[in-house]
């Protein structure tokens, strides 16, 4: 009889990225090869600008104009043009700020946290998600910047020596925000840029015009794929992911401190930090979902942004949505359990008071709508995915609205109770911020590789130097990994769904052409 060691060593060692149960494998469908990945991704930039892009860009620019107007009017007149009053001193500005920071968090989660967990499906969407993070943080930073009213005194938030010998108050959570969000933005840009370097080199080497070659070349820093560099590069990337992970948790925790360090019922509760983080990831994933669905359709990238990605994101949305639901329930339970009449009042008022409409929008969008994703059929329906994700973002915006406004509008002193309504300038700034986001996003997809080219190559079977596929691209197309496994005859339901999702349109023309070309070499 064979020894246990021999028996175990006889067990088939699968290909990287291949999962016998289905559900994890086939990140890049169509059995892409290195050249096809390069040309598919670079092709998005190199092709002629489409009408669709121009339309989107122009609409975004228009909204950006509205933002400019709203901000200019605000700066000229002061924050009185907004709907804020006493006691509701925090209105849409903080709501929008928290909303946008939250959106940004999914990008870091996808690029850093999923990287640390070796979730290979993140490859493919991480670049896109990181870009989203940076632009969302830009939008987020805008609101606290303008809400100070006298924006020319903004430098007072930084510890800069000055003739008044005055220093910022480091015990204020709002100052922690200044540091947390700006450092988050900085680190996100560094992380994104490090990831971009090899791809910028790819763009440089493919560039047809001298200007493009110069532009990409300068930022590619002379990258030449050296393995003495890759070795440090991988460590640096891992370190940045390791830094970004606690950073992303800290940022939304600190944002939650803005509320939770106060003594206000509805704001002061200990679960706020992880609850805010879960909510941020929740809304961010929904935003990534929306953007990815648009991008895969607009740029014909269905074989790279696969249904598998969408399915996994839907699962994360349901998970984090349930966490948010847990926090809502826990707040309500503790409002009862505490026996504190102010706590109970704040929550009963939230659900049944003047802002009940906002509360129930929040609950239905955030807690109920993602439960649809328990059903595989709905998780694999693009329309459902898209609509539910929009609902989630509406719900998460309302969550911040509910937290901010309902907690404030019933002061401890009933004489000062009031109702808050936004003015046109509140609305203009918020709607306009989508213009800023959209403009940046359009420029990004036009000029930078929206998929991490070098990284995507590492997850296809041919990248494994020891696999059967690593020894020659001819092999890469001859046999299917499943045939190597004893369970290959089992029906792979997940898999079938992926294949169905694409029908025959998965192969892009350049991919096929390049595959042929590489074979003839």
């Amino acid at each position, binding site marked *: 009889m064979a020894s246990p060691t021999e028996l175990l060593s006889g067990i088939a060692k699968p290909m990287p990225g291949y999962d016998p149960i289905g559900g994890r494998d086939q990140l890049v469908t169509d059995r892409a*090869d*290195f*050249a096809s990945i*390069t040309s598919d991704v670079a092709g998005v930039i190199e092709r002629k600008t489409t009408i669709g892009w121009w339309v989107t860009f122009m609409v975004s620019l228009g909204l950006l104009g509205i933002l400019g107007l709203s901000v200019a009017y605000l700066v000229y007149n002061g924050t009185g043009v907004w709907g804020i009053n006493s006691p509701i001193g925090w209105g849409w500005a903080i709501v929008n700020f928290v909303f946008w920071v939250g959106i940004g968090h999914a990008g870091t989660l996808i690029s850093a946290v999923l990287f640390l967990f070796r979730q290979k499906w993140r490859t493919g969407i991480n670049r896109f998600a990181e870009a989203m993070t940076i632009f969302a943080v830009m939008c987020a930073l805008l609101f606290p910047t303008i809400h100070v009213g006298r924006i020319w005194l903004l430098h007072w938030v930084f*510890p800069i020596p000055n003739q008044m*010998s005055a*220093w910022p*108050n*480091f*015990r204020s959570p709002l*100052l*922690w925000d200044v*540091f*947390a969000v700006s*450092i988050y933005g*900085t*680190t996100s840009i*560094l*992380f994104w*840029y490090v990831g971009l370097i*090899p791809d910028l*080199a*790819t763009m440089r*080497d*493919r560039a047809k015009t001298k200007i493009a070659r110069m532009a990409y*070349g*300068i930022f590619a*820093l*002379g990258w030449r*794929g*050296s*393995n*003495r*560099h*890759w*070795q*440090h*590069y*991988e*460590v*640096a990337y891992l*370190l*940045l992911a390791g*830094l970004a992970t*606690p950073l992303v948790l*800290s940022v939304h925790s*600190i944002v939650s401190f803005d509320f939770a360090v106060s003594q206000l019922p509805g704001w002061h509760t200990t679960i706020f930090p992880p609850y805010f983080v879960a909510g941020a990831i929740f809304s961010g994933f929904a935003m990534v979902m929306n953007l990815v669905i648009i991008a895969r359709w607009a740029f014909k990238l269905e074989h790279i942004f696969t249904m598998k990605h969408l399915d996994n994101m839907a699962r994360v949305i349901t998970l984090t949505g349930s966490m948010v639901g847990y926090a809502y329930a826990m707040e309500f339970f503790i409002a009862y359990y505490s026996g504190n009449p102010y706590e109970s009042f704040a929550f009963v008022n939230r659900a049944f008071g003047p802002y009940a409409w906002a509360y129930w929008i929040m609950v239905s969008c955030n807690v109920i709508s993602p439960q649809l994703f328990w059903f595989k059929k709905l998780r694999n329906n693009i329309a459902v995915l898209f609509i539910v994700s929009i609902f989630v973002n509406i719900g998460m915006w309302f969550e911040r609205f509910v937290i901010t406004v309902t907690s404030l509008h019933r002061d401890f002193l009933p004489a000062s109770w009031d109702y808050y309504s936004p003015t046109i300038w509140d609305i203009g700034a918020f709607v306009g911020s989508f213009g800023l986001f959209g403009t940046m996003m359009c420029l990004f997809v036009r000029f930078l590789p929206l998929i991490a080219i*070098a*990284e995507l190559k*590492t997850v296809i079977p*041919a*990248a*494994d*130097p*020891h696999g059967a596929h*690593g*020894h*020659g*691209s001819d092999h890469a197309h001859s046999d299917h990994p499943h045939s190597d496994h004893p369970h290959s005859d089992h029906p792979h339901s997940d898999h079938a769904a992926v294949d169905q999702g694409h029908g025959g349109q998965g192969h892009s023309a350049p991919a096929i052409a390049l595959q042929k070309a*590489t074979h003839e070499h």
Partner: protein
Amino acid sequence: MSTDHDTNEREYGLLAEFTNPGAVFHACEKVRDAGFTVWDSHTPFPVHGLDKAMGLKRSPLPWVVLVAGLTGASLAMLLQWWIGEVAYRMVISGKPLFAWQPSIPITFELGVLFAAFASVFGLLHLCRLPRHHHPLFSSTRFERVTDDRFFIAIESGDPKYDREQTRSFLASLGATAVEVIEDRDVD
């Protein structure tokens, strides 16, 4: 091609091309075992385990980053203590002038900021980048290093370097092409 070069022209070294990661991986192992020291491999993406196949040591970057992170965190704590207790003593909402509890957020954030900058600048320093001119860029073939080709470059500075012998050695490793690279930067 480069076979008829004058011997007195400076040459950077030899560049061998491979078509797949497996081939370059095994070639690297052989180059390493043959005792070459001044050489490198170039790939479109980090090939798993290639650092070991090349015999590279682990990157020292984590230590740099750790020190930077601790420095940033300490400086942040110091700054908050100094402003609270020394430079601007002001009681606000009954809180102590300085306490460790509310100083944690910024201490953490600045620690991360310093560490993140150290990761990026440490990386650039270790790679001696940016370097926009490199002899290898003179090769047209090398343009595909960022696409789908894999290369090994052995520099003429290597003690074991001999143009003809090294060339046939590289060819024997399964290289699809071997070319001599001139060093145009050095005059």
